[in-house]
């Protein structure tokens, strides 16, 4: 191909890109309606490995939207719930957020992955559309780690890793009288390192000692190599910050190795499936989670969800439910439906009563002051122990 050919090819590339531009702009066109409903977006992992959480959130969102609409909506207007799939990936979640903003949403509820929210937070501030993370627990979601300042438009509904790790650490040292602990970290997840660090701080502050850490990767099957190493360290407690499906594998394999050391874990353990996958193996273990279905107030929601969808709700469902009602409450306090006003009202929330507990927002970190529910696993059942603060 000659000089001419190269120019030709470049021209065609340009042409192609312009065609895409047109196509995409058209697809992003806003449709006008006479009485526009208030659009509230939701981003969750609707497909993929952890789709069970995203779908539970989406279903809860639909159900709660219908409930709010039946009771008159927000300030007299009906709301429209728009779920989008973030696939648990930062790039897809960012695209989803941008798309929702184009569709004219008031705010976006989601996601449950800290990595996704960390990517969206600066964009939410740019676009001035509030982002309400559901159960994403990393600090960096609401606070810019480089400057230490809060992201004004990034909020969260659940608590943070720091918080729950400290609750666990203190409980282990004071109530379980453990003297030593070891941590088995999931290298692929950010919360593992954060939890270990803060568990350690609380544990040491109450007289304990860390004897070692071991790492693994979520997606692997066999953890017996690492478990054998852990057993040799002889800790009183093993901290296991992994997703429930890996926790099940690890616990079963620990049982096979004849290990009797109890495990402790954060809200990533929380799923009704965990007992079915590894109930007996987790005998004597503890985990803490967002205050959820252990609270009697959640029973009507739980029953309504099961009746409507035929499956068990997850903590994510409650988070979305609370998120929608929180937005309603904030709009009513602000007196109008507007993203900037909503942001101010969210930030000044004092004692909003959600099904997951009360929310009072800390203006410096946007972290809601909550409690963590601690559960004990015994007899293949999880038994509610109590609500704790660190």
């Amino acid at each position, binding site marked *: 191909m000659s000089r001419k050919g190269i120019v030709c090819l470049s021209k065609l590339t340009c042409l192609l890109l312009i065609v895409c531009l047109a196509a995409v702009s058209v697809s992003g066109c806003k449709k006008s309606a006479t009485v526009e409903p208030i659009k509230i977006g939701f981003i969750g992992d609707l*497909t*993929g*490995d952890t*789709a*069970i959480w995203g779908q539970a959130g989406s279903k809860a969102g639909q159900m709660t939207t219908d409930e709010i609409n039946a009771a008159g909506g927000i300030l007299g207007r009906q709301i429209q719930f728009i779920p989008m799939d973030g696939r648990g990936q930062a790039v897809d979640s960012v695209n989803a957020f941008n798309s929702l903003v184009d569709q004219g949403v008031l705010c976006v509820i989601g996601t449950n992955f800290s990595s996704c929210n960390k990517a969206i937070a600066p964009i939410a501030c740019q676009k001035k559309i509030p982002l309400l993370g559901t159960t994403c627990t990393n600090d960096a979601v609401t606070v810019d780690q480089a400057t230490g300042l809060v992201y004004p438009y990034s909020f969260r509904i659940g608590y943070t890793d720091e918080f729950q790790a400290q609750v666990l650490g203190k409980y282990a040292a004071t109530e379980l009288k453990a003297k030593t602990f070891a941590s088995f970290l999931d*290298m692929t997840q950010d919360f593992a390192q954060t939890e270990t660090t803060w568990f350690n701080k609380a544990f040491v502050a109450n007289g304990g000692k860390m004897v070692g850490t*071991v*790492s*693994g*990767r979520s*997606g692997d*099957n*066999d953890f*017996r*190599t*690492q478990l*054998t*190493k852990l057993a*040799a360290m002889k800790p009183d407690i093993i901290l296991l910050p992994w997703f429930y*499906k890996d926790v*099940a*594998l690890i616990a*079963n*394999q620990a*049982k*096979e*190795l*004849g290990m009797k050391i109890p495990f402790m874990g954060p809200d990533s353990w929380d799923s009704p*499936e965990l007992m*079915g*996958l590894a109930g*007996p*193996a987790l005998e004597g273990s503890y985990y803490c989670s967002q205050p959820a279905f252990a609270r009697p107030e959640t029973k009507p929601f739980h029953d309504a969800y099961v009746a409507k969808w035929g499956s068990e709700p997850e903590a994510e469902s409650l988070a979305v439910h609370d998120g929608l009602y929180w937005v309603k409450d904030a709009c009513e306090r602000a007196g109008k439906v507007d993203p900037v006003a909503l942001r101010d009202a969210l930030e000044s929330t004092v004692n909003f009563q959600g099904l997951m507990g009360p929310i009072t927002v800390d203006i410096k970190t946007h972290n809601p002051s909550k409690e963590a529910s601690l559960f004990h696993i015994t007899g293949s059942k999880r038994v509610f122990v109590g609500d704790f603060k660190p």
Partner: protein
Amino acid sequence: MFLQQVVNGLSVGSVYALIASGYALIYSLLGFSNWAHGDIAMVGAYIALIAQTSGHVPFWLAVVLAIAGAGCVSMLSDMVAYRRIRNNHSPKMFLMIAAMGLSITLQNLIMVTVGPRFRTYGDVIPVRSIRLGGISLGVLDLLTMGIIVVALIALGLLIGRTKFGLGVRAASSNMVTASVLGVDVNLYIRLVFLLAGVFAGMAGVLLGLKYNIYPTMGSIALKAFIACVVGGLGNVPGAILGGVTIGVMEALVGGFISSGLRDAFTFALLIAILLVRPSGLLGKNIVDKA
């Protein structure tokens, strides 16, 4: 701890070996790496699961169905996809790309039909362990290793001592000559795919028992592939040796050096073998024909 780690390694390695031997069978005959092999194992695991939960059949029957089903899927994948590519005389790479496409298709087919949730077979074999002089051996593990050893011995006898095995060895040595000498090469290829599928189905059920059942469980086949390369591609005994070697090496590296860098070591071993002895530990030196 050392001995326990070795036992851990043998346990994992035996599963690698089972999957690797299926790979090696197909490679020996057709010279291509069946990327979808791990996913055929996954399909087998799901067939057993569906038979058990929806069909309410007893577990042993579910396993039989799984093995048969996986064999059929394997055979079908050849008839539908690979044979056409072979007959087109397309480069071998295309087979691998088609296999990759098939792998993605199978994984996602299961994801959209059965769902991505982790499943188990329930308490078919309880989680218990035996202690032998300071080492813990899981009951399930022993059972798995036992089954694998029996299966591999049976495979060895099949390939080494039967007429069918003779045909397979002839065809894998030189397909054209074998067909000239009267071996129905197409039939043998189909049968080898069936056999590889059967082994994959077995591996799938065992994996489902040991670990859990989920659509991407076939990704363990990557390690099995490395095992094949290490042991000598196209060589079933090599695949077995490779599987066990990788399993034990991973356990020892993870236990004594770093569990975080374990996979990096495995791949470094792969590169090292490819550079130093590309035909693998037991492989024959195959020169690329022009």
